[in-house]
């Protein structure tokens, strides 16, 4: 089953401030999109709306499942997953207990072995019975990745997923994001990773979509120039 999203003239206001202004684009299966822009450009706002976490103030946001328009948020959420700098896991449960809970919440019926395999994928196989709160920041982020991948989503939303990760963690995450079965939308200040992993780029500036580009039309140098053009602080 394929999942695609189209949006037209999407706007979001918080009181008098406009976070996003008339943005139109589409996400198709196979898209790996990097959203770029400086702080307050509206990246997270857009990501939250696409992930069904908040509703737009105006504009159209259409989700299609297997080619048919779908309004049922619950049905859509079954195919979406969200990974942010917040781990979204319970501190007083162990890593495995957390994953078991997510497993039942999404009705995936994964076996105990499958859950351990998932922990192994993120390099946490030895820490399954450890209380989440006693894990370090980087370990928590790895577990959070396991949580996001558990439902085997069609589309993954990533909001600064690399924060707190060491080199090994970043490498593992890169390998997992290269999976062809999954599309994703990424917000990060890691310019190099943002370029390497994605095949499309959206550049936001003050709530407007300035550019929407394919990777084949964009060299790394041009990409850096564009990012700096939107007065973004380059990190890493």
């Amino acid at each position: 089953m394929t999942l695609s999203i189209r949006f037209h003239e999407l706007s979001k206001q918080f009181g008098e401030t406009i976070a996003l202004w008339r943005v139109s684009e589409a996400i198709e299966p196979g898209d790996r999109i990097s959203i770029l822009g400086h702080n307050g450009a509206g990246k997270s706002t857009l990501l939250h709306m696409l992930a069904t976490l908040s509703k737009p103030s105006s504009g159209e946001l259409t989700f299609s499942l297997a080619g048919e328009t779908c309004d049922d948020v619950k049905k859509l959420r079954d195919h979406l997953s969200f990974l942010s700098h917040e781990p979204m896991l319970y501190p007083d449960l162990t890593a495995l207990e957390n994953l078991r809970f997510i497993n039942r919440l999404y009705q995936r019926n994964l076996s105990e072995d499958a859950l351990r395999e998932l922990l192994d994928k993120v390099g946490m196989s030895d820490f399954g019975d450890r209380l989440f709160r006693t894990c370090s920041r980087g370990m928590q982020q790895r577990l959070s990745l396991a949580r996001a991948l558990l439902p085997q989503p069609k589309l993954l939303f990533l909001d600064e997923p690399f924060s707190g990760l060491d080199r090994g963690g970043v490498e593992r995450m890169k390998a997992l994001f290269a999976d062809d079965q999954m599309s994703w939308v990424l917000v990060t200040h890691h310019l190099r990773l943002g370029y390497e992993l994605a095949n499309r780029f959206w550049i936001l500036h003050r709530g407007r979509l300035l550019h929407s580009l394919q990777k084949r039309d964009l060299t790394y140098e041009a990409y850096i120039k564009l990012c700096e053009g939107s007065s973004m602080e380059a990190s890493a």
Partner: protein
Amino acid sequence: MSGQVLSVFSAVLRKDLRRELRSREIFISSFLFSVILLMVIFYASKTSGVQLEAMSSGALWLCILFSGTIGLNRTHQSEMVNGCYRALILAPVEGGWLYLAKVCSNALLLIVMELLLLPLLVLFYHTDIGKNSGALLAALVLGTLAFTAVGTLVVVITANTRMKDVLFPVVQLPLVVPTLIAGVNATEAALQGKTADNWLQFLVAVNVVFLAAGFLLYDFLLEE
């Protein structure tokens, strides 16, 4: 479908109870708070010359109300830590079942605390709790369920505001006045060895209306 619903319901319920059993933070804070309240209520009303036994049902319900309010607030806060609540919002789950599971876990914790408070009532207020224990249990269970049915909704409502910790009690307490009146009277009757049918029926009605309302409304609160 019903099997799936049950699985989600029990997953949330078990998760909440396990978390609380492990941290015991809510339980310890609200139980200690209740013990302190029992003492404070005694000294605050001593001069009025009310008999100790006559005060016990009111004192018990004050404990339920205040430590219940603290407890509900705390449970929701621990759900907000690490953005866990966001994970619940994003899960493909009917909000209504989520709500019922939360009401169950909150009510269960509160009822356990009440059962532990009863011996203290015997000790501090010389109450005879054995006269009609069936009616007493019914009053406590129905009253607590009504309290949490409203509270579980209101805590999410106020969590969306800037001043959540202050607003929750201010919004919640007026809404539980009927439950308080019914609970105190039903408990009082039970302590005297009677059964207050009209009050118990009243509590059943409150439960039916608000559990149904919460079941239907909770989905609207699951957005950011």
